[in-house]
């Protein structure tokens, strides 16, 4: 644990009134190591350490806590601030059906999260969602969403052809006609460097009124989290992030990188495969997990 590693470098701090630069040099090394091992992006770690050490140095050593605890608390608080600080609400107060677009890399958890989100909105926000899929590529992708909707008792809209924009328009219309106030569109996994697939998303956003675009990110993603998040945000525009598979033991530093580079809030996270395992994001808990 990071506190144990920092404790030894702070043994020398006992009896000091103020945390000085020399005291913290070793502790900062440990924090840096810990953040890199947690998959926080190299450049983000650099900027965060520089910023936060300014706050730590010169702060009075409080009588009530050990210097280690205080130092870690400063970091925890600052990381929580980076991770949190903005609303996790979805932009749903619009003319129905409020339309949510789910995007992300292959295998990140979009289809599962789409169904989970439908269930979440139905049960927690008393909404009446419909779901559709424009993943016309992956074998049995549409069937996968259909089955999940069946399990969660959500309205699933069948495609009547395989043209992405027709599917979306048809779904909007069908959702409206059955009185759905929300439409969730599950998309195919794609690389943030795949121009053709980015253009597909751009055309959806150009032709179809999308009110909320959520980028789904696997919590075990590595250093490229920053480029994935940045590119999707710059090219497509996202309103929020969903972090999945947090029931695993990945430290999830990607969350920090993605939030840091896009400024977009992490709204929800997946804590298991079950359709009820989608929760509102907690910045403080994520900060301690990343810090170790």
């Amino acid at each position, binding site marked *: 644990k990071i506190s144990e590693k920092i404790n030894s470098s702070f043994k020398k701090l006992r009896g000091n009134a103020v945390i000085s630069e020399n005291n913290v040099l070793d502790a900062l090394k440990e924090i840096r190591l810990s953040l*890199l091992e947690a*998959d926080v992006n190299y450049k983000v770690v650099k900027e965060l350490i520089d910023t936060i050490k300014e706050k730590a140095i010169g702060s009075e050593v409080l009588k009530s806590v050990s210097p280690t605890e205080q130092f870690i608390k400063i970091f925890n608080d600052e990381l929580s601030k980076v991770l949190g600080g903005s609303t996790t609400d979805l932009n749903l107060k619009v003319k129905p059906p409020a339309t949510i677009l789910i995007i992300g890399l292959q295998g990140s*958890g979009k289809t599962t999260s789409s169904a989970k989100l439908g269930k979440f909105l139905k049960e927690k926000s008393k909404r009446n969602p419909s779901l559709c899929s424009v993943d016309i590529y992956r*074998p049995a992708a549409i069937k996968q969403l259909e089955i999940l909707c069946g399990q969660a008792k959500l309205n699933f809209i069948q495609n009547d052809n395989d043209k992405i924009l027709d599917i979306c328009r048809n779904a909007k219309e069908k959702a409206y006609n059955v009185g759905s106030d929300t439409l969730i569109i599950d998309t195919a996994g794609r690389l943030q460097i795949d121009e053709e697939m980015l253009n597909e998303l751009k055309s959806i956003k150009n032709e179809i009124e999308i009110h909320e675009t959520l980028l789904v990110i696997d919590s075990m993603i590595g250093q490229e989290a920053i480029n994935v998040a940045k590119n999707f945000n710059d090219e497509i525009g996202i309103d929020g992030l969903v972090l999945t598979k947090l029931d695993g033991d*990945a430290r999830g530093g990607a969350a920090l990188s993605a939030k840091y580079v896009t400024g977009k809030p992490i709204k929800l996270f997946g804590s298991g495969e079950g359709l009820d395992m989608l929760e509102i994001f907690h910045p403080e808990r994520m900060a301690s997990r990343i810090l170790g």
Partner: protein
Amino acid sequence: LKQSVKIDENTIELIEEALIMSDVSVQTTQILIENIKKRVKNEKFENEATENFFLDLISDEVEKILKRDDLELNLNPHRLSVILISGVNGSGKTTTVGKLSGLLRKISDKRIMLVAADTFRAAAIDQLKVWSERSNVSFFSNDQKDPASVVYSALDDAIRQNIEILIIDTAGRLANNSNLMSEIKKIEDIVIKKTNSLPQETLLVLDGTSGQNALSQIEKFKEVITLTGVVITKLDSSSKAGFAISASRDFDLPIKFIGVGEKLEDLVPFDPSEFSRALFK
């Protein structure tokens, strides 16, 4: 007189940045940098001491670590070969099974069967069935909810049909889920029981975009099943999968294939030289 090249702090930092951002572990990065420092001390380099010069030296060393004589797929020439596929959720197992069967179908005339042992996830069986049609190989699934029972019945069927290569697709499972980890151990046990041997290959499919958790996955899967190799998928992404170095060095596992796309032909045998060149591009 050859001028010995010096390596300054700034260059070390640039090298470290290049390694870390390729998802090489902190520990392996430190080791590789230490080795470079030793070489700079002991050898007389004529070239310019640029960061790229040192990264080329590191690529050479990485290639040596990754080059092994067990990179080939082990198949039994005289009887049924079983290939067990494992890995965490969404890593690319089902797609890899599909691609692998296509590859084996293309390069050999062996009778191949795919086993849909993911009885849990929605449309998992349907997904694998489509792949079996794409590569034109046999397919086995049944209504059993217990994956080990599916594998048991599949082995009966495979033996009856004189199948030569059986590839078992399993459900994604996070490595810290003890129930699911014992489930895959049970599947391995069933193969041992029915064939009197471990699977010829037990491959861990790792998502190429993952960070350091890939190493924890190898460690935990290795605790329950006898891994013979690793497949790294999604290397057509912007990720470099630097964790592969630790996979080879610390876990002594060969990387047998890499996935470079979503189509049938997008599975290629691992090339240590190409991989180490590409690490810092």
